[in-house]
């Protein structure tokens, strides 16, 4: 069965969704990711959806679930690169994904993920990184 690859990079898990999602694929991703977080003891999950042109309520819910599940397991998650048309469609559908962190691109997403991890570990991110923009 088709599966979306999950890459491990240090404390992080990286997922780049390159194909259009359908229900089974999204469900597989959800369970694979949660298992991978446990197996690798990951601190952060970054999901790049810049190539995804359709997100309906089911797939939106899966993305929300991934955020909540990772948080319960002690990992932070960020979704990056949502296309404007997808964002507007989700809002019209009534799905605002509150509780899911988002960022414009992978670079900004990594930055956000790091700061969230530092915050959750009780340190102030900006104390250590005074030179950020």
């Amino acid at each position: 069965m088709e599966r979306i690859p999950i890459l491990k990079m240090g404390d992080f898990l990286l997922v780049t969704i390159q194909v259009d999602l359908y229900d089974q694929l999204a469900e597989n991703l959800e369970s694979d990711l949660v298992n991978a977080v446990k197996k690798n003891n990951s601190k952060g999950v970054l999901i790049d959806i810049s190539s995804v042109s359709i997100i309906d309520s089911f797939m939106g819910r899966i993305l929300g679930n991934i955020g909540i599940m990772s948080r319960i397991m002690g990992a932070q998650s960020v979704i990056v690169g949502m296309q404007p048309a997808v964002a507007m469609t989700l809002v019209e559908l009534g799905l605002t994904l509150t509780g899911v962190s988002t960022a414009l691109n992978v670079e900004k997403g990594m930055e956000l993920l790091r700061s969230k991890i530092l915050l959750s570990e009780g340190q102030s991110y900006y104390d250590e990184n005074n030179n950020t923009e």
Partner: protein
Amino acid sequence: MMRTTTLNKLDFVIVREQDVVPFRNKVKEEAVKIGMGILNQTKLITAASELVRNLLKYGGGGTVEIESVTNGRENGILLRFSDKGPGIKDIDLAMKDGYSTGKSLGLGLPGTKRLVNEFDIKSAEGEGTTVTIIKWKNG
């Protein structure tokens, strides 16, 4: 529902989840053909994706007619989802935000209605459900 003229029509049979992606691609293809912009395309395909899930989940599969239509002033895509499932008991209730019989968020039907320009649902208990939507090119 508004009076329209059909310019082009094709049927798509949906019986398994694997049919969904090719179906969505076909809808996109037809939308591109009439010159629909990216935002309206996305809304249309998202609506189609919601409805095709209902077709599989509640109707046990069915057919979708994909038509490019015109109302004389503007072109659009019409999709008609027909199943022979158990039908919907209370359509008004099903169209309410937040209502769901399944485990979903209950955004399906009312959310879908907001994504398209025309939305029509007919259902008879025990006979099946037909949902017809139209998205105009610049709608």
